[in-house]
């Protein structure tokens, strides 16, 4: 209902021009992906020998099976699994921690409340890359190299998400917290019964963003995973490129790239329904 009101209706030539523009744009973005797909369905020789084919070949199953089971350094299925654990771990961890810290900052009066808020806010300006050496040192000393904890923990605090939830909590009327208090809800009960369900739209949207953030981590996994069994897919792709004179196995590399895209796409599509519904039906 709301969509229709907000949309400016166009008719005639304007409509067709808009569509044409969009179609060209999509083709432009989609072409490299198409090429990668084609490359993942042909044999090595077809790729190295110009011209590059533009239509899929018959090696689809062979190439993808090879990628999933053996890959180049590690089987892609292992790397996908590692990436999935890392991305889900980071996304859920970030959401849990930032929900709780935002809850503390908004609803509790404790000494140094403002200080902590600004400290969290400051870390917004320190991406992983800036603190990577000390973080590596810490993780190495804890013996967490080549482990899921090592992949997840350093990335699990999120100033952005904390800030977002803080802003959201501040729009929740104080009377709601007071009503819950009169009803006998202790703070954590209020958090789980009322604040959390009310935040589900924000959580869904944030999960998508954070999952992709976690999935796309490159530098950090590259540093701390030396064991191929612990490689993640995004860094794994890079490591498939030969260093020296070896020949790159292009069909497998391309199949891996496409496989690496599947989970984020699934998450976006799956979550889309949830948060679009949330955006349409207002929570007032």
């Amino acid at each position, binding site marked *: 209902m709301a969509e229709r009101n907000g949309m400016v209706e166009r008719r005639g030539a304007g409509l067709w021009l808009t569509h044409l523009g969009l179609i060209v744009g999509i083709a432009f973005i989609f072409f490299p992906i198409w090429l990668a797909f084609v490359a993942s369905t042909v044999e090595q020789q077809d790729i190295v020998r110009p011209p590059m084919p533009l239509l899929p070949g018959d090696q689809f199953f062979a190439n993808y099976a090879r990628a999933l089971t053996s890959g180049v350094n590690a089987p892609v299925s292992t790397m996908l699994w590692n990436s999935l654990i890392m991305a889900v771990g980071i996304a859920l961890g970030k959401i849990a921690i930032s929900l709780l810290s935002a809850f503390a900052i908004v609803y509790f009066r404790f000494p140094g409340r403002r200080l902590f808020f600004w400290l969290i806010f400051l870390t917004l300006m320190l991406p992983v890359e800036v603190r990577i050496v000390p973080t590596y040192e810490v993780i190495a000393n804890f013996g967490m190299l080549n482990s899921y904890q090592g992949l997840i923990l350093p990335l699990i605090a999120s100033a952005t998400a904390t800030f977002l939830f803080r802003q959201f909590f501040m729009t929740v*009327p104080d*009377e*709601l917290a*007071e*009503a*819950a*208090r*009169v*009803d*006998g*809800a202790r703070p954590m*009960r209020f958090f789980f*019964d*009322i604040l959390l*369900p*009310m935040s589900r739209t924000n959580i869904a949207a944030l999960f998508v963003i954070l999952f992709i953030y976690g999935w796309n981590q490159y530098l950090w996994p590259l540093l701390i995973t030396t064991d191929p069994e612990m490689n993640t897919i995004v860094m794994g792709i890079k490591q498939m490129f030969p260093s020296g004179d070896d020949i790159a196995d292009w069909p497998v590399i391309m199949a891996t790239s496409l496989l690496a895209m599947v989970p984020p796409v699934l998450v976006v599509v799956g979550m889309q329904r949830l948060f679009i519904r949330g955006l349409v*039906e*207002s*929570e*007032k």
Partner: protein
Amino acid sequence: MATLILNNVKKSFGMTEVIHGISINVADGEFIVIVGPSGCGKSTLLRMVAGLETVTSGDVQIGGRRVNDQEPMDRDIAMVFQNYALYPHMSVFDNMAYGLKIARTPRAEIEERVEQAARLLQLETYLQRKPRELSGGQRQRVAMGRAIVRKPAVFLFDEPLSNLDAKLRVQMRLEIKALQRELGVTALYVTHDQVEAMTMADRMIVMNGGMADQIGAPLEVYANPATEFVAGFIGSPPTNFLSTEIMGRSGDSRIGVRPEHTRLSDSGNLKARTVYAEALGAETLVHVRCADGTQVTVRQDAASTIPQEGAEVGLDWDPADEMKFDSSGRRC
């Protein structure tokens, strides 16, 4: 059901004191209305009774127990908020049942109590709806229901009707009053609307700047206001105030006369000029201006003759209806 005692209750926010010591003994089942202009501390006082605000000094007793240091849920109270404060993601049923669930009431009893409250409030058909699918009046009822199901000793209302339109407000105020009578629960009701106060209260507390100017039954307060503020605040249209100077008397005090006690009569020794007349149907309010600019309202029967605008009239009243206030606003 219980008595409620406030004993010299004070409240400060930081260095500023906003409630300057209020005492009242509320009998079991009594309906007390706290009335006063915006910012006079009505909500603060109510919230101290609820336990949402700490008491700076003095005692709050509910049912004979001192509750100053108790959490709201332990005080045996229920509160209805101005914006209803319904949980947006819960159904009407869950909204009403939430407090009982936390108190670990058995499931069967929760259902029974919620259904009973729903029947009382004519909400039976809405139990599965979400608050956003209800009208303002229905939300108001759900908020009432949430208070009722807990069977509290004291009901607390903070301007529960101010978001409703005028007609619904009249209807709801009758319903709330009837409900409170039926349940026999002690109630504390905050409003800035003096009509609500007059019609609902067994006794009312008229607050002004953090103090209780007067505590008493509505008609008693109306007939015998303790201060100039109360005389001006309670009653509509408000009391006319005249300086002794214009009356040709000595002393530094002010005279108050209610519009319905003021008469237009040619023999009246106070002369004034008619400014305009408001015909309200059953009655007509004639606004006149005295020589020193003081506005006076006269309440006339619609049948009586209404003077022309600009016409000179005389004002008169029965000396017994006169209220005298000293320079500090107290009755004297």
